[in-house]
């Protein structure tokens, strides 16, 4: 057990720190400001071009073949510099790597990792949320293509995406989990309509609805075999639940740092309960940082956590919501007076964490049945 940097890790950390000193784009927090998303593509490509993104992914696809714990260093240094978090797309990389053919991997991974091609994820539908397998979007074979019809929702960043990682029903005559396939659908074509959603904290660039009305995708863009879509989806969502894959630790550390700075400026103006909330938010964020260190270290043994990702998702959710609550507590009456109050926005955004990527209730069902082995309801 050793939490110190190895020589290679120390060298990487120093190089990253130097680069960040000159290249912090000064973007606002991703969860509270539309301006972040307007410039996020530039941040992604800048981070990638400097050699600081895609650290643990295969060099063949533009990654660096480094051990997963390098992402811990990346998150730490981004937070310390007050820079934006790393782009959260590791789960799509895992999905394509696990299920895609060599052709699919060669075609799509380099652009996804470098940020030259932007992606969104078309899973949820208005009537298929927690019950994802009941999705009704269809993909019908037509010559060399499939034709897509359906309605996706909670599709993050769909308005800037070049590609959609889409789940659609290709066989309506088999049980619901077996008739789904996954595709890389080009987003720039007729037959796709975007409808942005405004979140409770006011931002409009995070979520959207996407309507597919006769959009086309080439058969060769299927990811995995026909009917393999559910397994593809499970690979993706299990990784989407892992804070080590998402890089959110940096976002939480930065928020805690901002809140602590405000308190330090004049601690006497805060009540003991407010101070407790801030100290507890620090404890929670630090716990999650250390938890990610442990999980990414365990990957060195080849351990993939599967349902354990639901444990991590619940921990991450509690951390985000504790940090959000601390921001709200410290803001006090400002949060009530100013609709643009950043802590208010951080707090409001934090409520989504127990829904996105699978609700906390679904995560607890998974932990109960697949981690604890409790009997089925």
């Amino acid at each position, binding site marked *: 057990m050793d939490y110190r940097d190895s020589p290679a890790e120390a060298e990487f950390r120093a190089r990253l720190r130097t680069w960040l000193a000159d290249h912090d784009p000064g973007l606002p927090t991703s969860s509270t400001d539309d301006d972040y998303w307007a410039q996020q593509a530039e941040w992604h490509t800048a981070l990638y071009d400097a050699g600081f993104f895609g650290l643990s992914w295969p060099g063949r696809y533009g990654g660096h073949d480094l051990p997963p714990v390098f992402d811990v260093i990346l998150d730490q240094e981004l937070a310390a510099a007050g820079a934006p978090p790393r782009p959260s797309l590791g789960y799509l990389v895992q999905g394509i790597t696990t299920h895609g053919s060599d052709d699919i991997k060669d075609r799509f991974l380099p652009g996804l990792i470098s940020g030259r091609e932007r992606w969104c994820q078309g899973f949820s539908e208005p009537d298929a949320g927690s019950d994802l397998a009941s999705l009704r979007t269809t993909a019908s074979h037509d010559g060399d293509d499939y034709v897509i019809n359906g309605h996706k929702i909670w599709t993050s960043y769909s308005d800037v995406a070049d590609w959609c990682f889409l789940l659609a029903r290709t066989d309506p005559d088999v049980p619901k989990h077996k008739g789904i396939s996954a595709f890389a659908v080009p987003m720039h074509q007729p037959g796709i309509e975007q409808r942005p959603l405004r979140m409770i904290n006011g931002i409009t660039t995070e979520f959207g609805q996407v309507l597919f009305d006769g959009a086309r995708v080439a058969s060769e863009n299927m990811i995995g075999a026909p009917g393999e879509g559910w397994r593809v989806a499970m690979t993706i969502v299990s990784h989407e639940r892992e804070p080590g894959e998402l890089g959110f630790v940096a976002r939480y550390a930065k928020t805690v740092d901002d809140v602590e700075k405000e308190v330090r400026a004049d601690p006497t103006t805060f009540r003991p309960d407010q101070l407790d909330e801030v100290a507890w938010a620090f404890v929670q964020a630090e716990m999650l940082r250390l938890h990610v260190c442990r999980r990414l270290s365990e990957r060195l043994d080849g351990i993939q956590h599967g349902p354990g990702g639901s444990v991590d998702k619940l921990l991450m959710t509690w951390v985000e919501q504790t940090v959000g609550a601390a921001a709200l507590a410290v803001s006090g009456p400002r949060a009530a007076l100013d609709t643009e109050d950043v802590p208010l926005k951080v707090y409001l955004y934090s409520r989504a964490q127990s829904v996105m990527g699978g609700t906390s209730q679904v995560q*607890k069902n998974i932990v*109960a049945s697949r981690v604890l082995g409790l009997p089925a309801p």
Partner: protein
Amino acid sequence: MDTRDTPEQAELRRAARQLARELGPATVADLDDGARAKRLTGAVHDAGWLELRQDGGGGPVASGVESAIVADALGGAVADVAFTGPALAADLSRRAGCGATDSAVVGFAPNLIDPAVVPGRVAATPIYAVDAAEHVDVASVLVPTGPDYRLAQVQLDGPAEGADLTRVIRRIPAGASLADVHDQRRLLTHDDVAHWSALGLALTSADLVGLMRGVLDITVPYASERRQFGVPIGSFQAVQHLLAEARCLMEGSLSAALYASWAVDELAPDEACAAGRVAKAYCARAARTVCETAVQVHGGIGNTWECMVHVYLRRAVLSSQWFGDDGEQLLQIQRTRLGVDTPAAPSSGRPPGPAAPSSGRPPGPASG
């Protein structure tokens, strides 16, 4: 960076858990089985675990990680054997350059947070010897000497007491006289005491992690077996979600506690204490929730003396208070990180103000 156990650490973890499971109490009645407890004490002694913090030449025999591995294993089986107390005594003696001895335990102030500090020749307050082995007859206390401390000893003659049914606390009434320690080669600095406290925070945190794992190991099977309405109660989502949350709290606690155990010997005293405080704050709050969940899931029987879960909960009460509970850690974090200038901690160890952290708020927001 690699937080995995080395092969030796993994082997120690396996061996310690096996020994604790085999010789620890499986039932409340087992706590009265003196022959079993004696075998457990002998096995811990023979394994050499009580020597881990003794002088190994330029440092302890083994790092804080190894000691925490043992503390975690013993907590997991609510093993009724002295370990953390002797480890802390050995560590303090080593820092003071005293010869190795297993006949002393460290005396604590009534807040159970600080080592007993006695200016003069007579103790003005009671002193508490926590987790003293049966044969131990003296407690070490600190005597201010300029900015540093020398060690002195008081005789243990009071009865054993305390909520924890698996570890002994001996209370030394106020007015005890100090005896000199003659083999101390170095005065203890403030940093020495801070570093030693970091070990205390790490070991009590590790004990709490073990308690959470152990109590879940008996509660999850119980929920699968106990039937109501014709089905196992563990098939109800309401029960499943309580246990799922408890499992998450245990995993998060382990991640924080591992780092604290590594920090003891690898980081400067203030950094090691900071790591210990994070771990202790999280583990103390989590263990309270997890043990309470275990009582709840066991239902009526969980509220009886014969059910093992209160043995875990009681031990968690002591491990939380020893070196300070979650509220105390948050107070210290406010001082170091937020620049809060609060008066000395009240004697209860609780922070002032309306939101005493153990007032029922679990580590995870209840709504999430």
